[in-house]
């Protein structure tokens, strides 16, 4: 390189460096609001919850003293907590299983052309857009122990005989069934949309090539569709699992944890103990109980999805 070329290249290199520095600065500026948001509304409350779980803090007081792991010991010896822990897993695993299977079926159906497809898409998305409190009030009537429309219909078609009645919200098992039904109804649209996006992103050529190679429907599903959808499927499952593990709205609005605390999940029990009962320390210990598990789950699933990314 001649000296003239070097002289010309220097300002150019400096300009590139300045631009790159500016880009980095701009990147920091643009990221700052999101980071501030996460720090203020996620990190601080989370750390506060950890701190409160180690104290005897109560709702009506700003003063507290540290009690070590006493709250955790106390909740672990509580039958209500153990039941809520079990319910949380049942609620999450069953509802997420149903959501993924049904979301897949719906997404595949929506990929096919048919008349009224737009209307069907709108109706499928409706539960996602409806405020959960309003929607659950509707479900509350549907499952009402005295006036359940499901029961009236079952009577009409002869499923329920004289004196037979399902007390949806008054029975521990039926109560959990009702909670899972409402949660699946609520989560299904999101899952369907995500899976639909995943399915439509698979290039047609891949399927055509598989057809030419003589692959059957099952082979295509397990060797093409599933692996190619794994990243997006992981995101859908991860979101659904974390959301369901930490959600209390359906339980609280439908059964309030009853009958006799048999349908609580950890989030609703934490609300009952910490906010309604005023025992903030105990409520916090219930609320953060699953955090380590959720963190491990999130890390594993994100790694899994990264490995499965199609380059």
């Amino acid at each position, binding site marked *: 390189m001649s000296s003239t070329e070097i002289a010309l290249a220097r300002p150019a290199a400096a300009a590139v460096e300045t631009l790159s520095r500016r880009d980095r600065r*701009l990147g920091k500026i643009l990221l700052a609001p999101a980071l501030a948001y996460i720090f203020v509304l996620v990190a601080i409350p989370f750390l506060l919850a950890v701190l409160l779980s180690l104290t*005897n803090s*109560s*709702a*009506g*007081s*700003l*003063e507290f003293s540290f009690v070590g792991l006493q709250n955790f010991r*106390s909740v672990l010896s509580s*039958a209500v907590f153990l039941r809520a822990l079990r319910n949380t897993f049942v609620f999450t695993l069953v509802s997420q299983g149903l959501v993924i299977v049904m979301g897949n079926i719906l997404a595949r159906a929506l990929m096919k052309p048919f008349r009224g497809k737009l209307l069907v898409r709108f109706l499928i998305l409706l539960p996602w857009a409806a405020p959960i409190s309003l929607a659950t009030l509707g479900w509350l009537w549907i499952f*009402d*122990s*005295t*006036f359940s429309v499901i029961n009236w219909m079952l009577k009409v078609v002869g499923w329920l005989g004289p004196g037979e*009645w399902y*007390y*949806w*919200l*008054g*029975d521990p098992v039926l*109560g959990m069934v009702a909670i899972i039904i409402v949660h699946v109804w609520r989560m299904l649209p999101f899952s369907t949309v995500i899976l639909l996006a995943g399915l439509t992103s698979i290039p047609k050529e891949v399927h055509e090539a598989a057809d030419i190679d003589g692959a059957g429907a099952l082979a295509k599903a397990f060797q093409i569709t599933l692996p190619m959808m794994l990243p997006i499927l992981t995101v859908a499952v991860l979101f659904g699992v974390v959301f369901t593990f930490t959600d209390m709205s359906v339980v609280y609005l439908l*059964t*309030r*944890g*009853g*009958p*006799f*605390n*048999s349908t609580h999940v950890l989030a609703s029990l934490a609300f*009952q*103990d910490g*906010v*309604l*009962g*005023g*025992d903030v320390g105990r409520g916090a210990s219930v609320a953060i109980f699953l955090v380590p598990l959720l963190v491990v789950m999130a890390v594993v699933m994100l790694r899994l999805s990264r490995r499965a990314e199609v380059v």
Partner: protein
Amino acid sequence: MHSRRQFIVKGAKLVAAGAAAAAAGPSVFVRGAAAADKTLKVLQWAHFVPAYDKWFDPWAKDWGSKRGVEVTVDHVGFADVVPRATAEVAAQSGHDVHMFIGLASAFEEHVVDLKDVAANLEKKYGKPVELAHRSTYNAFTRKQFALSDMWVPDPGNFHKKVWTDIGMPSGPSTYEDLVKAGPEIRKAAPQMQIPIGIGLSQDIDSNMAVRNILWCHGGSIQDKDGNVVLNSAETLKALEYAKRLYSVGMNQAVLSWNAASNNQAFNAQETAYILNSISAYRTAQDNKLPVLDNYFFTPALKGPTGIQLASEHVMSGYVVWKFSKSQDIAKEFLVALVDASRESMLASKLYNFPSFYGAAAEPNTPTAKRTDSGAAWIAKQCNADPFGSHPGDKLSLLSKALPWSTNLGYPGFANPAEGEIFDTYVITDMFAKAATGAMSPKDALAEANTRCKEIFAKWRKKNMVAGGSKDR
């Protein structure tokens, strides 16, 4: 098209403008506040009789406008009263006056002592009803943490025709009557799904109902000195009674009872007996429901011990937060609210009963006779319901409800431990488990007793609850 540089420059200008507006904000606010002179923010429940709110809101604003005070009233559903208080205490800001419909005792540390207000009112109107005093005063810390302007009786509501058909035209008078009636109602009115509609669920009405059963069998959570005495033969009898009643007169519907279930089931003629204030009856009147002609009331039922007690259905407890900057105005407001006890009772269609009977006295009555005068006025309203009952004296038993009504925490005072036990449904769950056979009465009692003792011990450590030496 904008370049990135232009975008950033414009964005920076917008941010600068926003910052300037934010900086100017406080001075704008101060000017606004100065114009309004004084302010008072009141958090109030959404009353079970909606007509009351239509009276309360303009009344409060009118009271304020006469004194140069801008009064703001916000209503929340009854279930949000406690969570809202928790949030405001944590934020140390919000309303000046907060109304509780149960126990406010857990928030004692953050409220102003209203001893002076209570003393002034007592001087003016005589003593408040005992259950209001016991619900708003902590005898251990000697603090008047709340002030009650009203309480609500909780009678039995029975279906006249059905009970006449089974040979009890005046309805039940003892808890044993309910057990006898259960199978009879099933025969006489097979269309009714729940012969006896007493809730055993995690809700406010059930919470009161199970305490009634407990007290009338001689049991209680605490004694008068704050010792936990739930573990007793009397409690066991109450649980065994609940098991018998459930098997003959109830079904799982009562395990999912909510605050509206009483009203809905009785008004739809799906049950023949509920424990409720008159709000369900007023709903039936307003909507001219078919049940109306058969809608009648009974006093609290007697237990095998002869004890006849029912918890108040609602007990107002107004607190003034320590963080309030309008504490004096708030106290004046509470005095004015008690002064308006007659209007309050009429606006609520006789749902609210004054906590200071003297405040309902005829004008110019000597102080010593105010309580009696107020009681006479209350009885007059109940004996000839101005809101169109047939017969007119259908509600007359309400004026005699005081002797059989008591406070949460009976036979002691209300306290934070009783409040937490109430809000976490320890007693309803004990009854529900025993009644349905999910646990034996003995095991259900043992579980609940352990939890009650834990809760009491915690509040004793905070020096807010007495007792402990005679815990069982």
